[in-house]
Structures are given as C-alpha cells and as structure tokens.
C-alpha cells in the first residue's frame, strides 16, 4: 500500500524526468548530421500558416485593451504625453511574448502533437525506427527549430500589430495626440526590451515544440490517445510557458535596470 502511494506520488517527477531526457535527446539531435532542411522549411511554413492570422487577430485587441486601461489611468495622473511609451512597454515586454506563447502552444503545439500522435498510433514512428531512422532527428528536431524561428517572428508581429492597435485606439477613441503617442515611444522603452521579447519567444517556441513532440510521440491507445495527447500538451505547455515567462521577466529586471527619465 505504502509502495503504491509512493509510486503514485512520485509519478509526476518521473514524467518530468522523461520530458527532460527527451529534451536532451532533441538537443543532441540538433547537432547530428544530416540536418533535415526540407522538413524544417516545410514545418516552418506550416506553423507560420496556422499561427499568423490568429496571432494578428489576438494582437489587435491586446494592444487596444492596454491602450484603454493605460490611457484612462494615465489621464488621471495627468501624464497623457507618456501614453505611447506605456503602451509600447506593455506590448513589447509582456503582451508580445504572452500572445506568442498562447498561439504557439495552442495552434502550433496542438498541430505538432496531433501529427506525431497520429503517426505513433499508425505505427509510422515504429516503422521509421525499424528502417534505421531516428524519428527525433528526422521529425522532432526540424519541428522544434521551425517552432522557435516562427515564435520569434510572431513576437515581432504581435509587437507591431499591438502597438499599431494601441495607436489607433488611443488616437481615434481616446482623443490622444498622434505626435505625443509616437514621440514618447522611447521615453520608457529601450532596446533590451525588444531583445528580451525575442529571447522569450525563442524559449517559448522550444518548450512548446518539445512538450508537443514528447506528448505526441508517447500517445497510446488508439485515436482517443491522440486526443488526450493533444489536450495534455496544450495544458502542460500553457502552464510551463506562464511560469517561464514570469521567471524570465524577473531575471530581466535584475539584469537590465529600468530606464529613468
């Protein structure tokens, strides 16, 4: 009985360990030749095609909400001239990576998990291993790299669309002055903000693709298993990405002091 309880309590640690071991396998696979360039390009194209439009559509209201919130607040402080800088700061530092993580986990991750899961239950992965080809190197590595690449671009997309959305809402709906909005861009935000957004997106892409691949490759028990794998991969990725986002933000604030003046 005690044995059973112990094994149940320790099961999550075992899963975490297996996920980590899988991640190490993937990292090792990245440096193994031949690199599957074709698969990489195909996957990057595929991931981009399923994420670009939803990302843009999510980014607009994200920028708008920030503009509304910050705009109202800042008016009370009497610092309207800083509206632009506050919205840039919020979008580039936080909204960009968060929206990217949502889309990467929800759209790209679920697509990867479903694809690999279907291959797993159709015994395609077994067949591949039997044909002497390592599926991690052949399928997972190109997907992980493609996901990281696309995540960085998505982050840029969210930043641009979000700031533009904020501009429209601030100027058109709240009667802000266009000049002040644009002029204050660099008042608080700085270049490292952009770098950390890209770094975050890169890490999010890595985590989302690895979790999705791991769950997909370990799907079992027929079509229902694939559904479960997709579901689990999205939930696990969300949780991991939000935690990692917090940790990376905290580290960033330690490393880069906020701009004054």
């Amino acid at each position, binding site marked *: 009985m005690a044995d059973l309880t112990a094994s149940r309590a320790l099961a999550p640690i075992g899963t975490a360990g297996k996920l980590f071991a899988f991640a190490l396998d993937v990292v090792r696979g990245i440096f193994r030749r031949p690199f599957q360039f074709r698969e990489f390009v195909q996957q990057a194209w595929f991931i981009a095609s399923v994420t670009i439009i939803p990302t843009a559509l999510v980014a607009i209201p994200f920028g708008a909400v920030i503009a509304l919130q910050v705009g109202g607040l800042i008016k009370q402080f009497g610092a309207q001239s800083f509206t632009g800088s506050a919205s840039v700061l919020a979008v580039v530092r936080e909204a960009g990576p968060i929206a990217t993580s949502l889309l990467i986990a929800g759209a790209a991750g679920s697509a990867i998990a479903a694809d690999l899961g*279907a*291959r797993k239950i*159709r*015994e*395609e992965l*077994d*067949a*591949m*291993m*039997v*044909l*002497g*080809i*390592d599926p991690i190197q052949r399928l997972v590595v190109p997907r992980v790299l493609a996901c990281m690449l696309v995540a960085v671009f998505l982050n840029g997309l969210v930043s641009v669309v979000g700031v533009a959305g904020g501009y429209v809402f601030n100027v058109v709906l709240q009667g802000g002055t266009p000049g002040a909005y644009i002029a204050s861009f660099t008042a608080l935000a700085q270049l490292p903000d952009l770098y950390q957004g890209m770094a975050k997106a890169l890490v999010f892409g890595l985590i989302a693709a690895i979790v999705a691949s791991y769950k997909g490759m370990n799907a079992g028990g027929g079509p229902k298993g694939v559904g479960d794998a997709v579901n689990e991969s999205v939930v696990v990725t969300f949780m991991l990405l939000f935690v990692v986002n917090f940790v990376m933000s905290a580290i960033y604030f330690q490393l880069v002091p906020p701009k004054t003046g």
Partner: protein
Amino acid sequence: MGVEIQIEGLTKSFGKQLIWGDVTLTVPAGEICVMLGPSGTGKSVLLKTLIGLLKPDRGSVVIEGVDITACRERELYEIRKLFGVLFQDGAMFGSMNLYDNVAFPLREHTRKSESEIRSIVMEKMDLVGLLGAEDKLPGEISGGMRKRAGLARALVLDPEIVLFDEPDSGLDPVRTSFLNQLIVDLNAQIDATFLIVTHDINTARTVPDNIGLLYHRHLAMFGPREMLLSSEEPVVRQFLNAQTIGPIGMSEEKDADELEAERERGVELPPLPPIPLQLEPSNGIPRRSQRPPGDWCRENGVIPPSGSFEQNMTMSTGG
C-alpha cells in the same frame, strides 16, 4: 543468406503484468518460422522486442554477435538495417505516396541515383502486384494494398531478416493465400530469415519450416512444423486444430475446475487431422531450407496421422 536470431531467457512485463517469461529459442537462418498464440499473448510485443522497439526486463536477443537488448543506440540503428518489418496495417507514411514510401529507405540509407531507385522500387512494386498504384496516397487504398505496399517497403533494402506482424489480418482468404505464396516465393528468392506472427492456423500449417506457440505467458513449444502438427501436447493440439476442447478457453485460460470437469466427463480430444503438404515455391524449385514431406516424422519415429502429405487434401481443420 539470412541471419540467425538467438533469443535467450527473454522476459517482458508491463507494470506488474507479465506478458511472457523465459522465452528461449533460436530462429534458424534462412528458414520460415511462424509464431502462434491466442489473441493477447504478446506476439506483437515479442516482435517489437526482437527489433529493439521495446526493452525486455531480462534476457538477450543476439543477432550477428550483437545483443540488441543491451547495445548502444547507434549499433541498434545499424542492426535494424538488416531487418525488414511488415507492420499490421502496413505503417505507410501518410504524407507520402506509395512510390515515395517505398523509395524512402533507399533515399535515406543509400547514395543511389534517382534512376536506380526508380528501377528498384518498380521491381518491388511489381513483386507485390502494385504496379500502377505508385501515385496513390496510403489513405486512398484498401488495407490489403497497404499491407502489400508495406511489404514492398520492407523488402527494398534487401533485408536478411523479414518480420511479418499478422500478414493475414484483415485480408480475405484468397488474398491471404496469395500472400502466403508470395512469402514462400520470396524466401526461395532472397534466402532471408522469415518470422511470421499470426493466429491464422491455415498459414501456420502450410507455410513455415518451424512453428512456435506462445501460451499462458510462456513459449509452450518451438520446433519443426511436423513436430508440432503431430504433437499430442494438449495446448499445441488444440490450437493447431482450432478446437474448443482443451486447456485454452474463451478467456485467457480455462479454470482448473472447469478442466477437471471436462476430464471427468471423459471428453477426449478429437483425432489429429492429417498433416498437409508444405506450400512450395511457385516455380517448383524447392527452397534451400525445405525438407521433404514426412522427413522429420521418419527421423524421429513419429507416425503421422493417416492421410498426411497427400496431394489435394482438404484444408479443413477443426471439429
């Protein structure tokens, strides 16, 4: 020329449930073997263990001096190039058409030119009777065609060992007979070691040189075809003749008291049906590993059931 597989003390369990324990056998080089067993006795698990897809708890599988249960991953991928495996549903890559599927191993492992690849692929497609279907996607063809395409892909690297996971499941009797004939012809042609996992007794009675029977979490018997077909061992006898009377029940195995009751009622196993002739290659030239009918029985002083080894005997079993 075919490669021998030496399996020693192999044990596998999932969690606390033992699948089979202490399986020891040698699959002889260049011969056709069939592994039989009631549903759910881990035949496919055994197959997957032989190619290193699953790790056994104990025991070893030695192929060309390498123990694949304990070797490094890189060695495992090298050893696997000796194998051709036909999976239950063909396991074709859904995103590629049949031609690319069959060409896949050649493109990955050899430096052949596209025209060489084309001639090899077309030869294998012809062998399995799929010429003209190269451009189809696996989703667009029937299960039987997928299976034959899987066979073409398994053969494309000229394997030394070919494993078949239930080649007859989901096929009609005619296609099954054609596939069986194809298996025998292939063995005559390429001399590879064949291991077929199935529960189709017709295949088991006519195709192989050797038969193994997995039952009740162990290997009940492994030996030449005639040895098992003339065996008086209740389990072997019941299974190979598809009878309801015997130790195997509807669930995994019958209860001891049910068996006891059967014995008290004096239920006797029906007499052994005659042993059929082994399927011969279609060109009539015997395979290298083929033995004349009745050879084993004569050598071991076993009298085969009357009517054995006659031409045109009925294929019917059961009773």
